């Protein structure tokens, strides 16, 4: 089957999940009223379910694509923004922003910007610890250390916070779309330019996976390009963490699935990861609010329960020298 047919099919699956997430939920609705202004149906769908589904699409797609970008930069298919500490850094800086800056005027954009900065610093730390071509165990150990520091920092912030301004530690650690409305969606749209730019860098990412020296011999300015990919990936991760907390494993398992099923070329991996990641996140969000309704599970729990076992299998295979 041709790739574009697959792409069409995957978009269709995403659309099904999207529509399903609009029509299902704890509140039973009469969909005859959906176009009637002020009706319960229009309020629930328009103000609650629709922004959630849109943001889940944007951030699921963005995180999966950012994961593929980070894997290309680290030349390592098992790197993930959350596992290596990028998300942790973003969460810490978001929490710091809430506690120390937001009293002088809170803005979602400022929050996302701060999280982006934290993500960049964490990535540079991993590079600093691991050197130019760090091996997997080094990256993951650096990630453990950075995550530990960052989550402790987030915990500390929650004690310094004067009131309820800071969301709970568990929000940052597990991620949730519970509170999402249109303001979050409008900030979430900022991941799109970053995604487009990363897709434009597909061929550069292909060459970078050969190694720094090889990439330089093929005419690539390695350091500026690596930094550029890190910045765009950290921007997506930072926006995502600031809006919905840390959601791990999307960036790991989705690109992996694409490489196994379709191709390792980034011109395929990046867009396919975006489509599948968007669909996966919408489905996971729907599942997380349906399973124990009316209680909502943090979506990160659902994704982690799905992704962590796959990661364990991948690491076990890696220890035998297999990269797939």
């Amino acid at each position, binding site marked *: 089957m041709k790739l574009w047919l697959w792409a069409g099919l995957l978009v269709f699956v995403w659309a099904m999940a999207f529509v399903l997430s609009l029509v299902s939920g704890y509140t039973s609705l009469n969909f005859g009223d959906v176009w009637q202004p002020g009706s319960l149906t229009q309020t629930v769908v328009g103000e609650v379910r629709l922004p959630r589904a849109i943001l889940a699409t944007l951030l699921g797609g963005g995180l999966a694509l950012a994961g593929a970008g980070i894997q290309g930069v680290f030349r390592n298919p098992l790197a993930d923004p959350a596992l290596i500490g990028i998300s942790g850094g973003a969460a810490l800086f978001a929490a710091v922003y809430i506690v120390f800056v937001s009293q002088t005027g809170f803005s979602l954009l400022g929050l996302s910007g701060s999280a982006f900065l934290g993500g960049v610093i964490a990535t540079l730390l991993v590079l600093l610890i691991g050197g130019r071509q760090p091996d997997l165990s080094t990256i993951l150990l650096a990630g453990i250390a950075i995550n530990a520091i960052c989550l402790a920092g987030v915990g500390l912030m929650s004690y310094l916070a004067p009131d309820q301004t800071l969301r709970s530690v568990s929000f940052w650690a597990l991620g949730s779309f519970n509170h999402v409305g249109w303001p979050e969606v409008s900030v979430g749209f900022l991941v799109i330019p970053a995604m487009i730019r990363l897709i434009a860098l597909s061929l550069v990412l*292909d060459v970078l996976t*050969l*190694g720094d*020296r090889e990439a330089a*011999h*093929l*005419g690539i300015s390695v350091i500026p390009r690596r930094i550029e990919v890190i910045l765009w990936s950290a921007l997506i991760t930072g926006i995502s963490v600031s809006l919905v907390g840390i959601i791990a494993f999307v960036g790991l398992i989705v690109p992996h699935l694409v490489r196994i099923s379709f191709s*390792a070329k980034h011109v395929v991996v990046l867009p396919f990861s975006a489509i599948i990641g968007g669909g996966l996140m919408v489905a996971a969000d729907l599942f997380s609010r349906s399973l124990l309704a009316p209680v909502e599970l943090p979506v990160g729990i659902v994704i982690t329960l799905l992704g962590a076992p796959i990661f364990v299998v991948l690491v076990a295979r890696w220890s035998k020298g*297999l*990269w797939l």
Partner: protein
Amino acid sequence: MLALDQVGWEVNGRSILNGLCFELELGQHLAIMGPNGAGKSTLLSLITGDVAATAGSLQVFGKPPSAFSPIERAQRISALSQASELRFPFTVEEVIGLGRYPFQARVESTLAIVAEVMAALQLNAFAQRSMLTLSGGERQRVHLARAVAQIWSSQEPVLLLLDEPFAALDIAHQVGVRQLLAKILASHPVSIVSVVHDLGQTTQGYDRVCLLNAQGQQLAFGAPSTVLTPARLSELYGIAISEILYADGAPAGFGVAPVSPSGGLNR
């Protein structure tokens, strides 16, 4: 096309290479030889421009490597490194295609060149195989094919640098690669610089040999028959090396006496 004048390179006050003086003409194949740690790979890095010489002048196509833009340099100089560990399941065809990256050409022309190079290296059967499923020698051939694709069908003079191209290859593939390199030299405006270890075959296929000693000094440069003498090689490597001749008296390479269990060499 390649000219070195008193070239040296030192790092942290330690001299790795010094006093290199030689010129290579278009169409020639140069073998760089010497003991481990003589700086052979470093010399390739100086030529690619990965590092800059700390003494003397090194010119490729009439200018120092740093005077090229990255993309212009990639269009003129192709290099095969010793080991490139790829951890992503790219297909053989895709990896060889990356060799055409500097030219940003249409997909069809890239695929046509990739097909020609794969045919020349007997890699057609591997075209759709994942790199992760190949053996070390097969991977080596794919990366060699990528380096060759980078200079394939070039109209301008180009330079192909190969760091131990035969290291992981069996004898049949070594011969295949030698034939390919000879064919490229005959059909393309190219010079080749190879780092080689195997003394057994260095008398064939090379126009020039540059012999480095363990201190990174140029011991000799010239035609293989004048540079490679048993006396010079024995002194350089510190073991007895003798020339091997075919029955008709033609040179067949060099060999060492069998190693004895007690550690010394039997003569």
